[in-house]
């Protein structure tokens, strides 16, 4: 089975479904119409070429494109903050060749995706059920986050104070400083020792 095509079919289907859920995405696709953007992910053996029209087609071809981006999956997550772009290029975590405008328009297309899930659900369930479902889901989400936070605190207190399995971050910092100090002292002592050995040799 052609694996690259299975992957691109999955990404293409998901991306176009998401874009279809956001009516404003058609407007953001206009500057990209007819453009092609290639993404070379370090983790993938094949390039992903995004071809834009009134939707997005994803190919694995290696023909000429308007813009090429080379990066890893971890860098992809950092790209959510566009202000980090220059820094990532300087740090050589990201390579960008070709038309910068295409890359920016693609970034805007994804970043500005605004889907009203409640509205879409209401088409199938009606307004009341959709609203109540999302209200319950939001409440559950907040409760789950709060419990998770509390659980983290209990786990930290138990590990640090009761069982003494780990140290407090401040203690770790102090210890690291002391280790650094000791390393400097040893280095100075080693240098001094070497100097004395050389003097004795003369």
């Amino acid at each position, binding site marked *: 089975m052609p694996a690259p095509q299975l992957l691109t079919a999955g990404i293409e289907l998901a991306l176009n479904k998401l874009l279809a859920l956001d009516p404003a995405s058609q407007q953001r696709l206009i500057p990209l119409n007819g453009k092609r953007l290639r993404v070379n992910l370090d983790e993938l053996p094949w390039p992903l070429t995004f*071809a834009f029209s009134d939707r997005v087609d994803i190919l694995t071809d290696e023909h000429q494109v308007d813009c090429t981006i080379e990066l890893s999956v971890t860098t992809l997550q950092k790209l959510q903050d566009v202000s980090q772009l220059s820094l990532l290029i300087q740090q050589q975590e990201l390579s960008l060749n070709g038309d910068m405008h295409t890359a920016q328009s693609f970034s805007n297309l994804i970043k500005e995706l605004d889907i009203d899930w409640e509205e879409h659900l209401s088409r199938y369930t009606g307004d009341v059920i959709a609203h109540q479902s999302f209200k319950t889901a939001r409440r559950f989400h907040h409760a789950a986050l709060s419990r998770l936070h509390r659980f983290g605190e209990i786990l930290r207190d138990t590990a640090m104070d009761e069982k003494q399995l780990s140290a407090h971050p401040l203690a770790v910092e102090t210890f690291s400083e002391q280790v650094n100090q000791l390393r400097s002292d040893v280095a100075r002592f080693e240098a001094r020792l070497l100097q004395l050995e050389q003097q004795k040799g003369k």
Partner: protein
Amino acid sequence: MSEPGQSQPQSDDQTHFGYKTVEKQKKASMVADVFHSVAGKYDLMNDLMSMGIHRLWKRFTIDCSGVRPGHKVLDLAGGTGDLAAKFSRLVGSKGEVVLADINNAMLKVGRDKLRDKGILGNVDYVQANAECLPFPDNHFDLITIAFGLRNVTDKDKALTSMFRVLKPGGRLLVLEFSKPEFETLSKVYDLYSFHLLPKIGKLVANDSESYQYLAESIRMHPDQETLQLMMQHNGFEQVTYHNMTGGIVALHRGFKF
């Protein structure tokens, strides 16, 4: 080696229709009958028969097409327009896609499907025989024929015609059933296509004969190397092929220089 129940053409006026031998002039109308019969359920049957994998084979064909905005593309035996829909977006408003099929019923299904998807403007629909294409010389940047060449009566004539209408530098992509690479796969494939496939055809499209013909026509189609040689003999250069799903399907690619 001949398959059981298979007959051989006795003269130049005869050809294969599955395992049967028929007059050459009758084959086109017999193939047309098959596709008239299955046109309405063509997409559903393709998905069922291949378990959806035909979509990946077609995606691979598009990946190998090198098609660019502004290109002219001929999708021969284009059927229900799977390739043409994608090419239409890839060539853009300055490009041109011609969806051609010898069968009017298939062409109508393809046209309706593409229009329902909002694909208009750069797609033309032409009922044409691949053996005598009604287009000027050196016209297309790309020609594709997906699961259509095995139904053509005179394949050499069709390849010559495609070569004529292709621009220098253009490419031909032939996606077609071929010969499985492994003996075990071949046996499983035979069991599936001769026993299960006609039953699925009977159940879904109420037509087992057409799917019996499908299985037989696949066996009678030239294997990978033979088709490669045929393309070379008809003028194509740098002819290569890529097996997919163990050679059940192969994509042949050739260029005109």
